[in-house]
């Protein structure tokens, strides 16, 4: 999991790749997990609207006024 998530150092990555090359059983299990991980890449989201910014600015302004009192 850490390999797929980019959480390994370059040395650790190389060691893991070497391990997979030498262990075919793990290689196929890894490919299965990898395909699920890649599948998640289809997940996306739209851009939030400007109304969200307006709401935040209003909220922050209210909080600052309250603090100034």
């Amino acid at each position, binding site marked *: 999991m850490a390999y797929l998530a980019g959480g390994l150092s370059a040395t650790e990555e190389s060691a893991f790749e070497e391990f997979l090359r030498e262990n075919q059983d793990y290689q196929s299990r890894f490919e299965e997990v990898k395909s699920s991980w890649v599948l998640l890449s289809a997940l*996306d*989201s739209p851009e*939030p609207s400007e109304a*969200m910014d307006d*709401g935040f600015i209003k909220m*922050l302004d209210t*909080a600052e006024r309250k603090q100034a009192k």
Partner: protein
Amino acid sequence: MNSLSDNALMIKVKEGDLHTLGLLYERHKKKLFGFFYNLGNNPSISEDLVQNVFYRMLKYKDSFASDGQFGAWMFRVARNVNYDHHQKASKRGFSEEKNIENVNYAMEDPINETQNKKDNSLLLRKALAQLSEEKRQLLVLCKFQGLKFSELAQVLDISEGAAKVRVHRALKELKSVFVQLEKQ
């Protein structure tokens, strides 16, 4: 000011410089919006929930540990906001968007995307909707929000090893649900 870390900015907020929250908002608003949206909330509710996260950051700014990780703290607040929202919604007797039939708003994505990607995205959203809340959050935080396992562990208050195992299990379940949906 722009070069300051998230932690340094939040410490300023904690010390009373509320205006600094604006920088944190600019840095993280899209990330948080994507978090809520990908958990199955519609765009309008996702925006309200983002707003609520920043409101709570101000309200509970003293709970931010100066030596802590801002990202983990922010997503802990976001998880609570999401939980409270759906608790309230279910008390009111309706579930706005947490069901498979209602995830079709994903089809409103910009038309320049390929149909194939749209189909996969919609199917994936439907598959995610069938997972438990915790599994959905694990996958969204880990993959889409790019949280490291150490941060994920902090958000969920579990060990790093447990976070890896749970993400692995959630991925396997997602794939299985996705394949079933694909066959239908």
